[in-house]
């Protein structure tokens, strides 16, 4: 059997979504960003909203997200993506508007912007990648870094007295009247990725219902920053990150009890 026989349409069981560009990703092998990008891209393709989507990339490893998804992008200053998204959505109410932000961007320098976007009930989607570390600048402490976790700026482990406590943002913003859907997911296994994709799709759908902000936190690995192999990083995440950041829906205003 030659290759052309195998490539027949009836034999295709998987194809790359055209919403992903052919650019080679700069992410480290084992990084969660690539998987999350793919999930977002697939949701956009399946919903048929490529021409109606405007995305905002942060400062951090995913600053270059605009190289990988075949949609219109704005690249924001550090932490400010929800402000850009606010104006973009209010000026273009028929569009799907989402931000893609890491934990340093969203939970540290951008806390004012995310909290007020939530409080105002902006009809946008926020994809929040929480890997407990600053990846792009070389592995410094993030607001979400766990106690005891070693980073470039907590070389002896995060100490609550010296460095404060991890910031757990999702339950905080769940209390705000302007949020519609808050969920925490991960992408370390195929079933987890499928659940995460369903959550992303729900968030996109909710953003057109005029019911407020939808927030999808992805507890993620940064094996380079954590100085672990990808497999060891996944195991460490399950054993440590999931305890502080348990997976599951935190708020869903449309859920029938």
């Amino acid at each position, binding site marked *: 059997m030659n290759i052309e026989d195998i490539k027949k349409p009836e034999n295709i069981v998987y194809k790359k979504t055209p919403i992903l560009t052919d650019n080679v990703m700069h992410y480290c092998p084992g990084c969660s960003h690539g998987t999350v990008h793919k999930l977002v891209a697939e949701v956009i393709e399946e919903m048929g909203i*490529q021409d*109606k989507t*405007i995305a905002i990339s942060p400062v951090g490893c995913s600053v270059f997200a605009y190289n990988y998804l075949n949609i219109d992008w704005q690249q924001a200053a550090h932490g400010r993506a929800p402000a850009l998204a606010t104006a973009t959505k*209010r000026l273009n109410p028929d569009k799907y508007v989402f931000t893609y932000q890491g934990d340093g961007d969203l939970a540290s320098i951008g806390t004012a912007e995310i909290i007020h976007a939530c409080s105002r009930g902006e009809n946008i989607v926020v994809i929040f990648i929480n890997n407990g570390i600053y990846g792009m600048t070389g592995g410094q402490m993030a607001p979400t870094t766990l106690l005891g976790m070693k980073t470039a700026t907590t070389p002896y482990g995060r100490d609550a007295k010296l460095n404060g406590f991890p910031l757990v943002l999702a339950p905080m913003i769940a209390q705000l009247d302007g949020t519609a859907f808050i969920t925490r997911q991960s992408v370390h296994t195929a079933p987890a990725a499928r659940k995460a994709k369903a959550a992303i799709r729900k968030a996109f759908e909710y953003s057109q219902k005029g019911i407020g902000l939808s927030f999808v936190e992805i507890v993620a690995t940064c094996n380079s920053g954590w100085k672990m192999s990808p497999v060891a990083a996944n195991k460490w995440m399950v054993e440590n990150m999931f305890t502080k950041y348990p997976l599951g829906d935190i708020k869903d205003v449309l859920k029938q009890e």
Partner: protein
Amino acid sequence: MAEKILMKGNEAIAISAIRNGADGYFGYPITPQSEVMETLMKERPWLTTGMVVLQAESETSSINMVYGGACCGKKVMTSSSSPGISLMCEGLSYLAGAELPCVVVNCQRGGPGLGTIQPSQSDYNQCVKGGGHGDYNAIVLAPASAQDMYDFVDTGFDLAFKYRTPVIILADGIVGQMMEKVELRPEKPRMTEEELKAIAPWATTGKSADRSYNFITSLALESDVQERFNQKLAAKYEVIKENEVRYEEYQTADAEYLFVAFGCSARICEAVVDQLREEGIKAGLLRPVTLFPFPAKRLQELSGQVKSMMSIELNLGQMVDDVKLAVNGACPVGFYGRQGGNIYTPDEIVEAFKKFNNLK
């Protein structure tokens, strides 16, 4: 007869934004310019033109909302006063770095720090020389009346889109707060989607089948790419310097002494010129309307005609440096200023003028 209405300079900004087809205003309250957003909220333009008006949680957020709206090719603006403009400088740098059009009004008050709430011109260097990080300039318009406030919103948007650059309207507490007659020019509707796509094909409007996707960024990482971009900006600024210099002259034809003043100071200096001429001293005034680009060429010409120049500013002497650079030693250049929200009387300026020029 066009309709004339008595209004504050700050109100003129708001009314002009609505009547000139602005798509969005994002702001944060600060004295002495809060009337801009108050007027917009009272007028409720979202019910008439569809203009979006939003009170943000900070000036940092306001300018980033402007950034987001500008990315979409919309006519968006904000206004603030000095401490708020300091917070916006990050955003201004990004707007310049991403070549985005917008209008930012600075109704200056005294500084540094929290300073005073009274009028000042002490943000000249901040606004004219850049303000945020990196090599950039914004076009800076200096209004001297409520009518200017009204007109410069429209002029500002035209220039912002023509050159894909932020435009700053550098006003002050006097121009913002004083009430004057304002002629309402004919209204301009908001841009249609087709017009927007024609004027801003780079905008993030949603990737349609007929084009590749648009992305707006100010990030280069590679030195050569960044340097090429810096040189592209420099070339744009040269075109702006060549084509967009605006200034007004008063009694300069036979002037032997020249005052240089912008904004509210230019209004006061007109009275100074009149007073000196009554005494037989041939004084004149050049009022830069654009501070960037600066009317350096005209000042150079006048430096061959006058005995001296004097820059009159509500600060410790900022524009005077640009006057000196322009005349390059061809004539003496003096300075007189007041600070802290205090405003000079014409008599005070006459006295300083006579002292500088050794006149009785």
